[in-house]
């Protein structure tokens, strides 16, 4: 049996822990970071993600703001997963995460603690909470590419 299905309590604790003790939480005032603001008309989530890229490596990531337990925990976990990672590896994690959200087969190995969101699609309206951080990261990459082409 996959780890994720056998450890529901543990997965739940990962969410609570990241919600109550968010990792890489903070704001930097530094132009070398790309800052993405994730908010929407329909929910209260209001999250800023700041990413510093050096070549193709995520040198640093910080985030701040407010949101529901799912969006806050997701951003915290993502920040840990991508800190120090190469862009292509981060994109690969994102791809597997999105497969998990869509209920498709996915590679559990690369998702680390983000596996805790395996059940989010039981409440389909909350998928946008769980992937807010990843959508933010994708925007950050696009912004970074624009910067490179200036």
């Amino acid at each position, binding site marked *: 049996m996959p780890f994720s299905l056998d450890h*529901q*309590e543990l*997965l*739940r604790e990962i*969410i*609570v822990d990241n919600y109550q003790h968010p990792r890489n939480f903070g704001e930097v005032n530094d132009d070398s970071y790309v800052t993405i603001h994730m908010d929407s008309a*329909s*929910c*209260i*989530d*209001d999250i800023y993600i700041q990413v510093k890229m050096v070549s193709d490596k995520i040198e640093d990531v910080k985030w701040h703001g*407010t*949101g*529901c*337990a*799912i969006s806050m925990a997701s951003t915290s976990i993502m920040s840990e997963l991508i800190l120090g990672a190469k862009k292509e590896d981060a994109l690969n994690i994102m791809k597997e995460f999105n497969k998990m959200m869509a209920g498709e087969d996915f590679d559990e190995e690369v998702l680390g603690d983000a596996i805790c969101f395996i*059940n*989010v699609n*039981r*409440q389909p*309206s*909350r998928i946008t*909470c769980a992937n807010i951080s990843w959508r933010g990261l994708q925007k950050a990459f696009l912004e970074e590419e624009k910067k490179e082409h200036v």
Partner: protein
Amino acid sequence: MRLDPYLLRKDFPMYSKHDSSFEGKPLVYLDNCATSFKPQCVIDACNHYYEDITANTRRGDYSLAHQADKAYDEARATVAKFLNAKDSKEIVFTSGDTFGMNMAAYGLLPLLKEGDEILLSPSEHASNVLPWFEVAKLSKAKITYVELDEENRITLENYQKALTSKTKIVSLASVGNVLGYAIDVKKFVSLAHEVGALYIDDAAQSVAHKKSDVQDSDVDILVFSGHKMLGPTGIGTLYGKMSVLEKMKPLFYGGEMNARFKRDGYLTLDDIPERFEAGTQNVAGALGLAKACEYLSSIGFDAIEEHEAMLRKRAIEGLKKNGNAIIYNENSDTGIVTFNIKDVFAQDVATYLSSKGVFVRSGQHCAKILPEYLKTQGTVRASFYIYNTIEDVDTFIAACATAEDFLDAFFS
């Protein structure tokens, strides 16, 4: 006479067709401020247009088109009667409250000049704020606000303080969509008229729950959506006093709103209300809306208010007994209960309640200035209506009691 929600449910397919359940659980729908269920008679009224009398209105010289015209005109007359308007020509069909508020704001734009004041409140819904922001930019008029009291209510005293000789427009919701406080519209209108201002009643949240009488209140414009009052989506009404409609500029230009036009730009407008109804109209929607007006009138607003108050009281008592809720509108005037569960984010509460079959709204409810006053980013809102029962309230309260376990929505 008291209304019987169990009997009324037989009229609503959302209950009667599905044995009052959804996804295997009893259906506890408490988001009536967002939209209401529709009785079969409303659905039938819409279908009557599609099944029996489909033709474009105000264009055809054949008998079928005449039938459609007649039904559409009768729908207008029914809505006029529902609001106690003097003349059915004062009823303009819109697509809903947002359309109506934009029609009012842009329609009155020619009457505004630099330095004029448009008086709103911080608790207004986006549809009664953002059109005015745009119109204020275009006219250089200024937006002013009635301050809220410590309960976040609009008081007569604060309203009087905010009214000035420069106030040209007052636009307020007669019932607020977050906290459900009602204002004394008649008194507010008379004070607005004393300073020479026009008064616009955003009745989106009142029209389904309280009697509206535009002659008694003397409002200049009243706007509402059909779908929150048992009617179809995509239809609403702007009521305007004839003298005000005569001054208003149409928002949309096109078919059937004009009388004549020529290549040099010459244009004469059609009569009122047709000049405000450009293009093919939502005839089915208008027929459905009229039927909803009749249905509500047959129940009576005294019975509706009494029922909602009873449910609300039970909900407030239950939340207090649970002990884990912060209630923001304990003394509200309508069937709206706005609250949070301590230390749980509003959206997490709503998802948890949903997992128990209880459907409520969470967030800022489109009133994005209000959180500053409530000192919270978001709230949970339960709103009751005629078909809600004591059992609905009890299920809701029982679910709230354990809402700290909100992650159960994903894990159990």
